[in-house]
């Protein structure tokens, strides 16, 4: 039983919070050496730090060396710690340009947007709010960009409220669930921007997402 637990990678290690997974090479091979992640309740946890404990391959020369190498390959361990991997917020160059333009025209709004985006990184509970299909809270309103969602692109629209009311800007962002990154694609002023595939910003979004390699979801 202990061997089975060890083999599937479940180890209780004193001094660590929660579980420590030590994946066996065979299991890692099965999952293609990709990061193994799971959700534990609300917290997004991921297993990281895969460090092989294999000596350089030069030690595997010769017949016995090869056997030793095989043995060591079996011994190879990947040490992993279960930790929270928070979502990161990446601002695309186009969005930086948008923010700088807004900063010239409307300084408080630009600062409020940047401050709020930083709050996302600092308080991951706010990120959870961004995943609702139509979420409206005191200070934010989140909605899917339906035209792009229909194409399988995970693009969302966010509007913010400051002391004076709703800001006349929409933050377009794409969620990359695999690498835990929210890519801010652009910040657009609402009146000229149309929720339409013919809009130049929308076209730019599609190109950007394709360049980023964010996988499309199955459009409903």
């Amino acid at each position: 039983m202990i061997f089975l637990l060890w083999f599937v990678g479940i180890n209780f290690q004193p001094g660590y919070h929660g579980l420590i997974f030590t994946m066996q090479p065979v299991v890692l091979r099965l999952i293609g050496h990709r990061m193994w992640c799971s959700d534990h309740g609300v917290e997004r946890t991921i297993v990281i730090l895969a460090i092989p404990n294999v000596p350089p391959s030069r030690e595997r020369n010769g017949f016995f060396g090869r056997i030793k190498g095989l043995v060591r390959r079996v011994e190879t361990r990947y040490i992993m710690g279960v930790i929270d991997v928070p979502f990161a917020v990446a601002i695309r160059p186009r969005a930086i340009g948008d923010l700088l333009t807004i900063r010239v025209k409307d300084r408080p709004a630009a600062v409020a947007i940047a401050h709020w985006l930083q709050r996302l990184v600092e308080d991951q509970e706010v990120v959870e709010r961004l995943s609702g299909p139509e979420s409206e809270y005191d200070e934010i309103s989140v909605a899917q960009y339906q035209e792009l969602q229909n194409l399988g692109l995970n693009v969302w629209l966010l509007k913010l409220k400051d002391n004076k009311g709703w800001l006349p800007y929409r933050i377009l962002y794409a969620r990359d669930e695999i690498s835990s990154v929210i890519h801010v694609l652009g910040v657009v002023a609402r009146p000229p921007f149309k929720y339409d595939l013919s809009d130049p910003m929308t076209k730019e979004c599609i190109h950007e997402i394709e360049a980023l390699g964010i996988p499309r979801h199955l459009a409903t």
Partner: protein
Amino acid sequence: MKSKLSASLATWQPEKPYTLPSRRPQFQWGKFPENPAIPTVPPHDPQPDLKGGTSINDLVAEWERDGYAEDFVKLRVEDSQEIAAERGRDTLRSLRLKAGLSQVQLAKLVGTQQSAIARWEKGSDTNNLARSSMRSLARALSVDMTMLDAALND
């Protein structure tokens, strides 16, 4: 007359004694290998691949250097008041915001990672907080230890 052989024998020095290579740490049941080359805890925050994007923390830091620091401090102080009013007391987050600091800035002052500050603000790992970290936190936030302790036990 000394021959070449005797001359070479006179200067002969034994080679450096052969030492066995140090034993590679072996797997021990229930233990991580004690190999300093293999850290058992991540040495730094895992940084996701931003794929050429700019981190929001870097962007805000750049704007603060450009002369927008006061604007951010003002917004943080406003946030701190909201949080304190909502909770009815100061929390670590509200204390940080009241000091006008971002998590990255506080982490630099305390000498830790931003993710550690985020965890402490969330309420995890605060029981095991080192005394030195507590002192650094109190110094950075300009509060006394009692107030900090109350904020951490939120």
